[in-house]
């Protein structure tokens, strides 16, 4: 029986990595070998650099009124201008930051909620499971975008935090169901039985025995949720919900649509640039999601077998 880590890792990812350089090596090796994972990772790193230091990529203030109305791309304005003469390129660069923050924070919080609810339902069973499963089913059925829109509409003057809250409330259910199914399949395994016989508390069993085993699925779920958040947040902002005075790709799309950028006389790049940026960020997370599904599952299986044997 491998000794569990002396202190609880803050996150399940760290717990997995802490199990030794062997597991770590397999993880990084798998990412490097998987073309999808490598592509997604490079893309995400690139976007993170732009989000962290936008001033490296543009010297212009994204809100400054500089040129004429809806000019087409030129040497000065690489992606043209908005209807009030703002530089679309610098808006695209500066908008990366808030777009990425909303995505990662909403994706992270929603994964957290889904892990708590899914694993609690699977492990505790009985009435807790029935209630939590019912809650999950209800949130799966209630159509998400209408619920999101109605929440955002009632949170009048909704800022970024309100949008994140709405995204989390509507986004967690699908992952929670997946994690519950995975948790159920773990429940009868020998190493959990052994922990119970040892007299460990449920909290310890969940944190040290169950969660590390589910790491790959949790990470894959986080990537999947982030993919969903990129598109959904952009869609909400596109409809004019949330704080429209902040520069994000979604609000750029909203103003471009409102001012007829795709119609003759407009600057279609005002729409195309943030739109393809949303696609790119979504693709980065989706690639990582698929990659974790691919490399995660076999790794998870061999990992489980190794843990189960000494416990039996």
């Amino acid at each position, binding site marked *: 029986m491998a000794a569990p880590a002396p202190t609880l890792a803050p996150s399940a990812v760290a717990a997995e990595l802490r199990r030794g350089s062997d597991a770590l090596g397999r993880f990084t090796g798998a990412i490097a070998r998987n073309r999808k994972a490598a592509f997604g990772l490079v893309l995400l790193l690139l976007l993170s650099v732009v989000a962290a230091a936008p001033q490296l990529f543009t010297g212009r203030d994204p809100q400054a009124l500089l040129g004429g109305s809806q000019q087409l791309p030129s040497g000065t304005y690489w992606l043209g201008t908005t209807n009030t003469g703002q530089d679309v390129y610098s808006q695209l660069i500066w908008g990366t930051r808030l777009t990425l923050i909303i995505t990662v924070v909403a994706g992270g919080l929603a994964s957290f909620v889904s892990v708590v609810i899914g694993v609690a339902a699977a492990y505790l069973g009985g009435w807790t499971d029935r209630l939590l499963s*019912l809650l999950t*089913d*209800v949130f*799966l*059925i*209630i*159509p*998400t*975008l*209408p*619920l999101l*829109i*109605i*929440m*955002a*509409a*009632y949170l*009048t*003057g909704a800022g970024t935090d309100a949008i994140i809250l709405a995204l989390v409330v509507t986004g967690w259910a*699908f992952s929670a169901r997946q994690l519950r199914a995975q948790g159920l399949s773990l429940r009868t395994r020998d190493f959990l039985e052994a922990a119970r016989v040892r007299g460990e508390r449920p909290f310890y069993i969940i944190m040290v025995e169950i969660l590390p085993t589910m790491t790959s699925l949790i990470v894959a779920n986080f990537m999947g949720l982030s*993919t969903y958040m*990129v*598109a959904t947040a*952009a*869609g909400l902002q*596109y*409809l*004019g*919900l949330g704080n429209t005075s902040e520069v994000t790709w979604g609000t750029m*799309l909203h103003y471009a*649509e409102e001012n007829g950028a*795709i*119609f*003759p006389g407009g600057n*279609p790049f005002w*729409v*195309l640039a943030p*739109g393809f940026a*949303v*696609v790119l960020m*979504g*693709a980065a997370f*989706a690639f990582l999601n*698929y990659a974790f599904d691919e490399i995660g599952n076999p790794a998870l299986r061999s990992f489980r077998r190794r843990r189960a044997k000494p416990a039996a």
Partner: protein
Amino acid sequence: MRYLAKRFGLFLVTLWAALTINFILPRLLPGNAAESILAGMRNVTPAAYHAICAELGCNLHQSVLLSYFQYLGNCITLNFGLSFQYRIPVTQYIMIGLPWTLALVGVATVISFLMGTLLGVVAAWRRGGRLDSMLPPFLFLLTAFPVFFLAILLLLVFGVGLHWFPLTSNYTFGVVPSLSLGYIGDVVSHAVLPATTLVLSLAGSWVYTMRNNMVTTLAEDYVRMARAKGLRPWRIMIDYCARNAILPNLAGFAIQIGFVLGGAILVEYTFSYPGVGGDFVSATDAHDFPVLAALFLLFTLAVLICVLIADLLTAILDPRTRES
């Protein structure tokens, strides 16, 4: 039977949850926010003021519980009050846009379901074939594109660029609705781009799940048995595999329908299509809460009804659910 009873229980609980969300959300507004919405409305008669007040839950003379039951009663009798924007009963207002959305969403769902399921069946049947190897990158591309951006791109290319289809609305302004070929053609040409957007965004997941289910079913012993008996491939494909492979797809129908409605909202907004999805967005802009509440309920109800239909079909197609 127990299966259906259980599913009906879920139906009721979800409906109640949607109703309660509708009731609670306006009451979560800080008192000032409700006041500020009222202050933003001009020419409000005292009667209308009280009605709006009650709607927003700032009527302090009444207990919350009493107004909750009053609200539930109003919902059951389809009494959603007057639209803040148009001063006509909400139900009357919704009925204007509803047929357009029903037609758009209905046609798009049916086409995408048939197309997706068929492609999935064929891809799995010829596993590793040309269609099967072409699908994954194509599907990946589709999932990466948000519905609204797909709509914008189609509009840009086929509407603005190529002039193949009209840009907005449901039929040409000024044309009198009639049962003539000209009018119907006009309506169809206006619906092509919105419907194509929905089909493209939906078909992907149908293909994907159907293909994977088929691959699993093809490995079953009874399929091998059917082959050994010398049945026609067509019959094995449809009666033996597809019938079983479609079951999980039916179960996924619920989530799918919710997704279609979300897509319809974004698509109708982009194409200025005068359905209830577009109404929903304009109601958020105008803070038209009675319309918002009624439409949210309508969307939830639509999903619930589809779930029930899917459950019924599952019970018919899969004897195992009937036995337990």
